[in-house]
């Protein structure tokens, strides 16, 4: 029997030298390849479907805390290390690669209110309800030694938030006022107040490191300049802001997580109008953290879900939830832009993929090319209704789903009422207020 084989002449496809141009075995004449758009549409549709099929963002749950996780911190030098403080005063260090707790410290009596790492990664600071600020070494004690803080500062009042300077041995705490501390001293080198209220969180600007932002319970956000030791400006919103986060790539942009279910992205030079109002949560937003690329941020909410928002979009692109996850109190985006961690009421820290359908591990070049192509296809056809529908579709827990419906009804009713009021009053007496302006009460100089 004669076996027919494919036999090709290598002259037809092998270059003589590396410097020769590549042979193109294909004729790209568009006349020969009709129906580009329908074919690409089908590909885009498949890519979108596959994205939804492979969207399995949940990676691991780190359990070990014996009370709700109140705060999280990233290690500035190590991607694998995470610190967490719980409501029972316990601080734990975790190794993400092994997904194990590597160290446990009973740091405070009562809540651990805040935790932050030093910029060099050698030590970290915790504050608690016991009015103390404690500095701890990142490496654990040797065998036989007791777990002791490097330094303890006893304050007059309760501290509710702490953040470390990005370059220098300075940290800031907040409580009744914002205090700037030199690490070497036991008293603050500078205190800044503006009115009397309890300040819930303070954050250093990562780029222009002398800037601070804080939010207080009298619904305001205050900006401070550490160098001139003075507050700069105050903006009062409808409801209380829980925390703020600065954009790590854009020096003047920060996002505030508000009690009114929304997040507000501000340009700090123009506080009277937020750049964007991000709304999708159905309950108070408790924490927010930027991705290190500054293109997106993640928010944790009391509605038992976390959402990922693009900075320039008002709607979230992703929502993560699990059956057992309760109110999410703190959330962090890891410094390699790949993962998201969230700590919640029911004592767990959860690790999620930032891109739900991303394949983990090393990709071959062909896989990479396919991924990029699919991504571009999805972008290209994102406005087509069927593709949009599939890409947007998320399964939500019943509570959130029903609340969304409910709030939609409420919002519609409010809108209708306003329209009616405008209709039945003197023209111009009920002005149209844009959504962005609606939630800003005042800007105080």
């Amino acid at each position: 029997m004669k076996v027919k084989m494919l036999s090709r002449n290598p002259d037809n496809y092998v270059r003589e030298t590396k410097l020769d141009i590549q042979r193109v075995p294909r004729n790209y004449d568009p006349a020969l390849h009709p129906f580009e758009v329908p074919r690409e549409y089908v590909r885009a549709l498949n890519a979108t479907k596959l994205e939804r099929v492979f969207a399995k963002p949940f990676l691991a749950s780190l359990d070990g805390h014996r009370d709700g996780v109140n705060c999280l911190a990233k290690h500035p030098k190590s991607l694998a290390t995470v610190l967490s403080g719980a409501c029972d005063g316990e601080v734990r260090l975790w190794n993400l690669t092994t997904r194990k707790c590597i160290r446990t410290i009973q740091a405070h009596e009562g809540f651990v209110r805040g935790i932050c790492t030093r910029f060099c990664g050698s030590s970290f600071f915790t504050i608690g309800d016991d009015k103390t600020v404690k500095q701890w070494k990142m490496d654990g004690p040797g065998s036989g030694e007791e777990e002791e803080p490097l330094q303890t500062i006893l304050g007059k009042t309760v501290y509710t938030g702490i953040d470390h300077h990005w370059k220098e041995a300075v940290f800031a705490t907040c409580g009744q006022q914002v205090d700037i501390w030199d690490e070497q001293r036991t008293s603050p080198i500078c205190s800044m107040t503006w009115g009397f209220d309890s300040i819930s969180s303070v954050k250093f600007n990562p780029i222009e490191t002398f800037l601070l932002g804080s939010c207080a319970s009298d619904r305001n956000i205050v900006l401070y300049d550490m160098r001139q030791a003075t507050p700069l400006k105050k903006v009062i919103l409808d409801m209380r802001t829980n925390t703020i986060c600065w954009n790590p790539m854009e020096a003047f942009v920060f996002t505030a997580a508000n009690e009114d279910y929304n997040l507000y992205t501000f340009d700090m030079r123009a506080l009277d109008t937020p750049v964007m109002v991000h709304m999708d949560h159905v309950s108070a937003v408790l924490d927010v953290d930027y991705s290190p690329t500054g293109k997106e941020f993640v928010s944790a909410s009391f509605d038992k879900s976390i959402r990922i928002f693009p900075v320039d979009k008002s709607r979230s692109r992703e929502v993560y939830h699990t059956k057992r996850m309760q109110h999410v109190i703190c959330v962090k985006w890891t410094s390699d832009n790949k993962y998201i961690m969230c700590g919640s009421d029911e004592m767990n820290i959860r690790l999620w993929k930032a891109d739900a359908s991303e394949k983990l591990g090393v990709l071959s070049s062909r896989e990479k090319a396919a991924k990029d192509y699919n991504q571009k296809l999805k972008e290209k056809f994102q406005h087509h209704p069927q593709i949009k529908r599939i890409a947007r579709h998320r399964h939500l827990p019943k509570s959130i789903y029903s609340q969304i419906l409910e709030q939609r009804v409420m919002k519609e009713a409010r809108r209708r009422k306003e329209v009616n009021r405008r209709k039945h009053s003197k023209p111009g007496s009920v002005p149209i207020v844009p959504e962005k302006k609606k939630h800003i009460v005042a800007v105080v100089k």
Partner: protein
Amino acid sequence: TREKLVLSDLLQSVKASSSLATIKKQLTRVKSKKTVQLPLNKEEVAQIHREVAFNKTSKALSKWDPIVLKNRTAKQLVFPLEKEQATFAPLEHVLGGWKARTPLEQEILNVLHKNKQPVTDPLLTPAEKASLKAMSLEEAKMRRAELQRARALQSYYEAKARREKKIKSKKYHKVIRKGKAKKALTNFENLRQANPSAALEELEKVERARMMERMSLKHQNSGKWAKSKAIMAKYDPEARQAMQEQLAKNKELTQKLQVSLESEEEEGRMEEEELLVPDAVNAIQMKANGPNPWMLQSVTLAASEADEQQDPEQLPSEPTAGEDSESDGEGSAGATEETELRELEERRSLRKRSELGHAAGARNHPEAQDTSSQEVLLEVRRLAQKLPKEARSSQPPKGSSTGAAPPAPEKEQAAEEEPLLLQRPERARTLEELDELSGEGCCPNLELPRPVSQGLHAGKSPKNQPAAPKKKGKAQMIDLHNLLTTRSPSGKSLAVPTTMEEEEDEGEREQKQTIKEAFAGDDVMADFLREKREAEEANKPKDVDLTLPGWGEWGGVGLQPSAKKRRRFFIKAPEGPPRRDQKLPNVILSEKRNIHVAAHQVHVLPYPFSHHHQFEQTIQTPIGSTWNTQRAFQKLTTPKVVTKPGHIIKPIKAEDVGYRSASRSDLSVVQRNPKQLSKRHRKQLKKNSPEALEQ
């Protein structure tokens, strides 16, 4: 109203006594000063402070605007942003961990060891090290003195050269030049005896200089100066002289050197050959080991021509004479000038011969190079150059001559083969015209008739001098591309393929037959036409008949409403717009909106687009590798954000984007102005500090 006590009243009372003068002065000064305004209250001061600080900070932040904008609109951002700094490690350190693995490496290492070459740290041989250490003070001094002397000598030499260059005397320079030439010659002679190979190299250099000269237009009497002189030459003997000199120089420079280190007899023979063969052959010989191998091809072509020319040119003196007579016979205006020039050249060459004879003798030229034969050769060369020009400028040789006959059959043949070839208003009468045709690209194939015409040429006009350049012109018409693309007309005359074709035909016929059988009942065309007609009918707007039978008149079976009523209540449908497939016989275009498709279509123009054309354009450009080259595909699918796995992305820094980072640390600034600590806080701090210290 009470009177106010004014200071001036008091002052008036003061007598102008000397004791009180100073007080008075002081009081007047006080009077001139204004009262100080009340200080602002604390809140206002704080607000002003805040406003100033805010403005300052806003301004400072504005420097980030361009970077933020750039990053937002960037096609691609690669994180982490900071560049990895290249670290410089000494080679020894890098190579520290290296070990020889392959046998080759080991061998090399062995060799290095044997020769005491350093393998690792530091990369210096012992000798080098020693030399580094060796230089003592004395040595250094000596070396310095040596250098100084050398520098002094150099400056003397430079001064001398400059002085000599300034001397205006031509005679002096001539003497110098001649002396130099003599010296060079003697040197060469010595070299030839001592070291023949070196002498050969020298010769090659001379040859190369000659080639350069030949390539350039220098000394060709073609420059501005030369042209002006040419005009003057008739009347001004000096100008003539200058031109001649110029030409002589060219001749001299382009003269081929006839030196060979072989035996005398061979040389003699070679000389004879030189005399016989034209320039082209010389060129080949030179090129065989010449510097430019790419010229070889054209040279071989020329050589083939030369071979063809051999027979008519066997007697070199005769053609020249014929040519001379011919050109005389033509008697064109330029001819007289040319003859004059030629005479000039002859005279000049004669003179030069006598000079060169001397030089050639020095260069060991044999006496075979006698002046007359050289002249003849020159003539041949010159004529060969001139002829194509003449042939073009002058009309083709007279109609009755033998030269005119051959092109006709040739053209006929060409016409037979390629009827398109001669689609031109006027016929190409001569080979030259054909040549032009081929230049225009409409004469792709003329090879076949060529041998015939050549034969004719060779047979009928063996002494026809213009034939040579014509052939040259024809040789240019041979195009490899044409050769390859021409199909041989006799391809089908082979026996075997024909039978094969017949078989194929039969197979096809059978297949057609079976297809016809299978679709015997179907008349697809008619079906389609009917369908189209139906579609047209269905889409036409319908007439409406609103007549009500029995309304206003009797109705019943067999009764029709009156024609008047029917006319009145019949609404004729308006003519719809013309169908779009009206002129497309093979197409049915349905203009109904397809709701199934509509569900998949975009209804609203998406945000960044301002016109639906833009959006459609983006959709219509494919990005896949099916429609794009690899490179384009990669470019089209570059991801917007690229991150390196396992790398920490730090916040953007001023240094990353080329800004200067703040010189002073925030901490030092804060410590330098602690003014903002209010009294209350200070008190509080005082209270706090002892407690804190206790800890």
